[in-house]
């Protein structure tokens, strides 16, 4: 549940920016439609045959590209869903009197059902388990088809009639091409819509940082499961067309080599690119026919599946040399052409903007003059921020309990990291959690945020137990966090990051996303995200890639992202770490104002002075135990706390409190402690 990278590396799966552009997309779709209309008019019979298979195979390939690109998962059994549906369709139309359209729907439904049953337990596990289980499924499907009388063993299901559309028999390759093409185009559009939808963006955020996305309320598991079932639906549709086209369904179509072929189409086309999947299916089919023709002439006597040598070679070479695949190459060429024409996005302008951005960041305030200027800027920055702060919904009255920890304990083997910690976090207050190194602060924090499960004890947020659940459970109730080691969604811009914070407030699911019926909702949330960025002085960098920002501004962006969720409780993991003095001032003042606006804050912080100055309530952990809780003044006066921080014995620490003289005495006794103090 940690930020374990289950997904494919970001560089390999990111859909190219150029193709995300809606206008370019529609031009692309129009060009594809024209090409598909013209193809049967000009293609030779051989090419026509290749074209029909390429179209049929494009459907499973699109499904697989969604699975790999969005869900970050690989199926090595895409052919099994293809085969299940082909068999189901063939058996339904040859053995039952039900209408063919209904048979096709049922056939696709069977594939989806099997995918649901397989994905339901397996998508909870790390990525490679699904790959291996689907591979196993592929063999099982193949063997069952080959061995059972129900599927007519190796003879397969034959006697499938050609389909009729409006009374016209789809009797040749040309007509069949036109019969399949609309489905491929519609499938492509649906898939493209999905990648740009709320669900699609959430999944690409998951691929950047699963923990961060889940902390914003993204239910990774259920989204992945939906995409997996959807990819099986695409495969199933391909299977139905296959049954119609070949008119006999034999166990061979479930064979592993076909799954490899689908995988090759997606990898070769460009991992995670829907366009790439369509291109890949044509390239692989051409490659297949070419190799089968060429290899026997080079190596006399070569028979059988000789095209495999090309598949293997291409698969390996593409992954090593061209992780972007065909689409990646197109992208590089496009960029090159643009640069040649002098139209490309000027990198100098962008870096100048970035330079300006970092100039504004208060860093290195050393000289008095600069400090003076800084102070003014901080004031104005905070003033401006306060004016436009987003609303902080407060479901409970100030002072009442928002978060309750009871007996929270975490053991690692024999080591007790957090031992029986119990305290309340009141609404509308800033609570600080401090402690020396290794005191269990971060473990405690991670149990609250859902990143790790406690050994025992409960975490109740707004009266609901959330311990041991995924972070998205608490997040959807209004608890979110920032990260000490920043978890920025690198595949999108700053606005896109903050937009992800709106995930909880959106409603559109996978289906609406595919149908493209969420434009208004997306625009509304995008506007809110932009307002928050403006309010916190990040409006000028909204369109820059998030990874390009300097550290301090990335942290502010994470705060924006968390605020966009409209949280009830904001958890901050060492928010001051890595910030300059002036940046700390800005953040501290912002947090005070957010608290005054009703937000509850819990922060883990190493910098004790900052916490004492900022927090209304301070909890101190030492060696896994909660040793003190109270106002900053109470805690500061607590002998146990002093002992913990000074590393002295308790009685010695009491002496510390007895008077200045005693303190002096202790200090002169041990100069090292003087340093610590």
């Amino acid at each position, binding site marked *: 549940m940690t930020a374990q990278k289950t*997904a494919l*590396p970001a560089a390999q799966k990111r859909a190219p920016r150029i193709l995300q552009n809606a206008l370019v997309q529609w031009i692309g779709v129009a060009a594809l439609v024209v090409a598909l209309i013209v193809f049967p008019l000009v293609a030779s019979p051989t090419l026509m045959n290749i074209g029909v298979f390429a179209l049929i195979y494009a459907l499973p390939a699109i499904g697989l590209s969604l699975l790999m690109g969005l869900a*970050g998962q690989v199926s090595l059994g895409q052919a099994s869903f293809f085969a299940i549906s082909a068999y189901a369709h063939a058996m339904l139309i040859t053995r039952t009197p039900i209408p063919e359209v209904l048979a096709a729907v049922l056939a696709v439904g069977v594939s989806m059902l099997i995918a649901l049953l397989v994905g339901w337990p397996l998508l909870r596990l790390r990525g490679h388990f699904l*790959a291996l289980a689907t591979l196993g499924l592929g063999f099982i499907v193949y063997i069952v088809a080959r061995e059972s009388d129900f599927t007519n063993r190796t003879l397969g299901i034959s006697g499938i009639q050609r389909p009729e559309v409006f009374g016209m028999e789809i009797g040749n390759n040309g007509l069949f091409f036109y019969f399949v093409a609309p489905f491929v185009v519609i499938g492509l559009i649906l898939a493209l819509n999905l990648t740009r939808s709320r669900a699609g963006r959430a999944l690409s955020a998951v691929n950047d940082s699963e923990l961060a996305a889940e902390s914003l309320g993204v239910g990774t598991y259920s989204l992945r499961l939906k995409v997996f079932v959807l990819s099986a639906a695409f495969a199933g549709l391909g299977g139905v067309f296959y049954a119609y086209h070949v008119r006999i369904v034999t166990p061979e179509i479930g064979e592993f080599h076909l799954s490899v072929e689908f995988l090759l189409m997606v990898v070769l086309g460009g991992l995670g690119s829907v366009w790439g999947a369509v291109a890949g299916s044509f390239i692989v089919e051409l490659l297949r026919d070419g190799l089968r023709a060429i290899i026997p002439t080079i190596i006399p006597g070569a028979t059988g*599946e000789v095209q495999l040598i090309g598949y293997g070679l291409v698969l390996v070479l593409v992954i090593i040399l061209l992780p972007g695949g065909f689409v990646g190459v197109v992208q590089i060429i496009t960029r090159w052409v643009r640069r040649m024409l002098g139209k490309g996005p000027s990198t100098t302008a962008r870096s100048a903007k970035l330079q300006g951005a970092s100039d504004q960041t208060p860093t290195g305030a050393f000289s008095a003059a600069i400090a003076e200027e800084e102070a003014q800027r901080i004031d104005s920055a905070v003033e401006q921020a306060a004016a436009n702060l987003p609303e902080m919904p407060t479901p409970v009255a100030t002072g009442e309990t928002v978060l309750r920890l009871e007996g929270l304990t975490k053991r690692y083997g024999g080591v007790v990291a957090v031992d029986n910690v119990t305290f309340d976090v009141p609404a509308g207050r800033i609570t600080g959690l401090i402690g020396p190194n290794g005191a269990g602060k971060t473990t405690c924090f991670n149990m609250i945020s859902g990143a790790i499960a406690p050994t025992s004890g409960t975490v109740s947020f707004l009266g609901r137990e959330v311990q041991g659940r995924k972070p998205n459970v608490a997040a959807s109730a209004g608890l979110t966090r920032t990260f000490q080691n920043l978890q920025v969604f690198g595949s999108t811009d700053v606005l896109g990051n903050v937009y992800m914070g709106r995930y909880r407030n959106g409603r559109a699911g996978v289906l609406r996303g595919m149908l493209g019926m969420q434009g208004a909702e997306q625009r509304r949330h995008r506007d809110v995200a932009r307002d928050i960025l403006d309010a916190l002085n990040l409006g000028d960098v909204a369109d820059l890639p998030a990874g390009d920002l300097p550290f301090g501004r990335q942290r502010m962006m994470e705060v924006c992202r968390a605020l966009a969720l409209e949280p009830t409780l904001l958890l901050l993991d060492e928010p001051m770490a890595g910030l300059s003095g002036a940046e700390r001032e800005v953040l501290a003042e912002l947090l005070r104002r957010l608290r005054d606006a009703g937000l509850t804050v819990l922060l883990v912080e190493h910098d004790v002075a900052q916490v004492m100055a900022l927090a209304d309530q301070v909890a101190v952990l030492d060696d896994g135990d909660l040793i003190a809780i109270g106002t900053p003044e109470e805690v500061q006066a607590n002998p146990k706390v002093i002992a913990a921080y000074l590393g002295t014995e308790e009685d010695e620490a009491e002496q510390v409190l007895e008077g200045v003289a005693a303190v002096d005495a202790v200090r002169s006794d041990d100069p090292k402690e003087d340093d610590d103090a």
Partner: protein
Amino acid sequence: MLVDFLQLTVAGLSQGSVYALLAVGLIATYTVRHVINIAQGDFAMLAGLGAVSMVAGGVPLLLAVIFAIIGVTVASVIMERLIISRVKNLTTLVSIILTLGVSTLIQACMLLAWGAEGRRLPTFPGSDINVAGISIRSQELWMLGALLVVGGGILLFYEKTKFGKALRAVAEQPVAARIVGISPVVASIVAFAIAGFAGGVSGVVAAPLYLATWSAGLLLGLKGFVAAVLGGLVSFRAAIIGALVLGVLEQYVAGYIDGGFKDAVAFLVLILVLIIRPQGLVLRQSAVRV
């Protein structure tokens, strides 16, 4: 009746020892590089076919077997150097796609070099024995012996020697491993050499009983993988036991139900294990995250 049962058990154990050797090779590379090597079984077939050709060319059986094993060990290291190590950010998932490509490539090369027909290696020296009506072929003893010596040796190397333990540390703590003097590059080469060696041995001991065919490696390697999953991808012992159980189960299915379904057993086991107990048969709750 009981004799049949025991006969099937013996056949299953010898078949299972081949899966076990492959599983040991898979775990050897997974623990060090977090790479799942789909091509592992193809290396076994490569060794088998190579040895067959050498014997046909007049090389004595023993030498042919040794040369084949060395050749495959070298091939595995070459794969690591030329292909595996070339990919940056090699996640386990990408490694599956990548080695799938390698597997396809090796299969196609074997198809072109040896044709589609399966080939058989001469039986190793020794005589069949008969205990209480159960006949045990000498080759089956060779297979079990290979597991005992090679599988056991690799297990001891990884679990008992300092270098072996350090190899496992490379995957978890690359920096720490470097401090104690093991470079990730060396660790990776050693791991793939061990995997290639185990694969080669499994290929040559199985080739006299089961045909060596260009396409059989994938299925064989995957069954080794199923056994490795039974070991949670980390435990040699659990994987070896899992492999033997798998081999025996397959024989029971073939003997009592239907030979055609034999190959489905492994994958049914795989899916069930992943659903019910993804950490494998490892009894101790290890730090493995799934």
